[in-house]
């Protein structure tokens, strides 16, 4: 009896194993996107870096090739509404101070960065505008309004190469991020590197392991049908190895974000990307 029960349960997990045939060249709306480039000099164990797009099935890949098909754009549109929406005691919208959203081209490639000794991400910059200039409530790190706005600002840099600073002021944050990347955590006792550096390209059960790049964030995931923040993804990976995640927006995840961004130097910004 128990036997049948388990067979049934096992069968629920069955699906069609999509042969992960990677298409090699990505062009979105006529713009060519770099999904493969020589690894930056600081990476000791990897020669070539690849966008996560390269590890997805042909069907998932196709969704990102045309903005009409890309479900993430529903949320980017919402970001555009928020851009013009007056909010807070100062009676301002983003567009009251920033003339053109296009002026943000290039910003995504350089974040996170150090401002006055502090490591800041795009979420920090957005919330600084909300609290200090608009006198409005800050947005929650991974909630819909924030990811809509990081998606809208991020897409302005689409096609531009990731290019974060890791020297000078940034060096200690980068070192800390690197240490976290290689530190094993959780009951499963794994580090990011065990999956995304040592085993990318392999199947781990139903998942095709990528290098865990962040050039496509926020990403639309088929799994939850919304935009997902970078720190939200880190949190998910930590929970999968049964580790207590660090706090979204906290020092650890910001440092890890800087380090991961630097592992993607030269890959095109793909925001908003589609993943499973």
């Amino acid at each position, binding site marked *: 009896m128990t036997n049948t029960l388990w067979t049934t349960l*096992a069968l629920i997990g069955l699906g*069609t194993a999509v042969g992960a045939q990677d298409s090699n060249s990505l062009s979105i709306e006529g713009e060519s996107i770099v999904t493969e480039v020589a690894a930056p000099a600081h990476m000791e164990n990897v020669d070539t870096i690849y966008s996560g797009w390269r590890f997805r099935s042909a069907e998932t890949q196709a969704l990102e090739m045309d903005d009409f098909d890309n479900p993430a754009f529903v949320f980017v549109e919402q970001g555009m509404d928020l851009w013009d929406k007056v909010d807070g005691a100062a009676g301002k919208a983003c567009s009251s101070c920033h003339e053109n959203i296009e002026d943000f081209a290039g910003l995504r490639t350089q974040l996170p960065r150090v401002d006055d000794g502090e490591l800041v991400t795009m979420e920090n910059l957005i919330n600084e505008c909300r609290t200090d200039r608009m006198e409005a409530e800050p947005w929650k790190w991974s909630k819909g309004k924030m990811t809509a706005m990081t998606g809208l600002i991020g897409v302005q840099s689409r096609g531009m190469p990731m290019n974060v600073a890791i020297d000078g002021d940034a060096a200690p944050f980068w070192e800390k991020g690197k240490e976290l990347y290689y530190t094993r955590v*959780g*009951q499963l006792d794994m580090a990011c590197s065990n999956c995304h550096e040592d085993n990318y390209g392999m199947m*781990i*059960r*139903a998942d095709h392991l990528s290098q865990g790049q962040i050039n496509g964030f926020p990403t639309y995931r088929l799994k939850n049908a919304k935009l997902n923040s970078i720190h939200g993804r880190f949190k998910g990976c930590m929970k999968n190895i049964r*580790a207590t995640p660090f706090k979204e927006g906290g020092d650890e995840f910001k440092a890890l974000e800087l380090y991961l961004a630097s592992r993607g130097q030269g890959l095109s910004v793909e925001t908003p990307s589609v993943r499973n």
Partner: protein
Amino acid sequence: MKRALILTLCTAFGATAVAAGDVKPADVVYEDGVVSASLTGQAGDAVNGRMVFANRKQGNCLACHANSDMPEEGFHGEVGPMMDGVGERWTEAELRGIVSNSKMVFEGTIMPAFYIDSGYERPLDKFAGQSILSAQQVEDIIAYLLTLKDS
């Protein structure tokens, strides 16, 4: 609900995480990675071991090891070696060492230690102080692996 289900099944097979006669994770004796003594003093159940091997909430060994003995399961992983013929490559005592704490055998391995309850950092609260598998589940998996002869 799923939890309750697993618990019921475990009880049905006489394996719970806290069986009195079990060797505690901290007391397992490794000699060059080899563990000679049974963790439970009872024979492993290969049929249950096969289930624990595939179950995502238990061993989930299939996440990393492909296994021709389980064609009914979709999605076999490729992170570790295939399990075909593993029962001929290793003895029972060696397999007990590998499954209980693979790090004693393969330096720096990604493979989790399935029978340790300390020594890992920042576990989620609900897993703190616990091993991934119970002693009986480890014995059951070993009994199952020993059935995988030849390829």
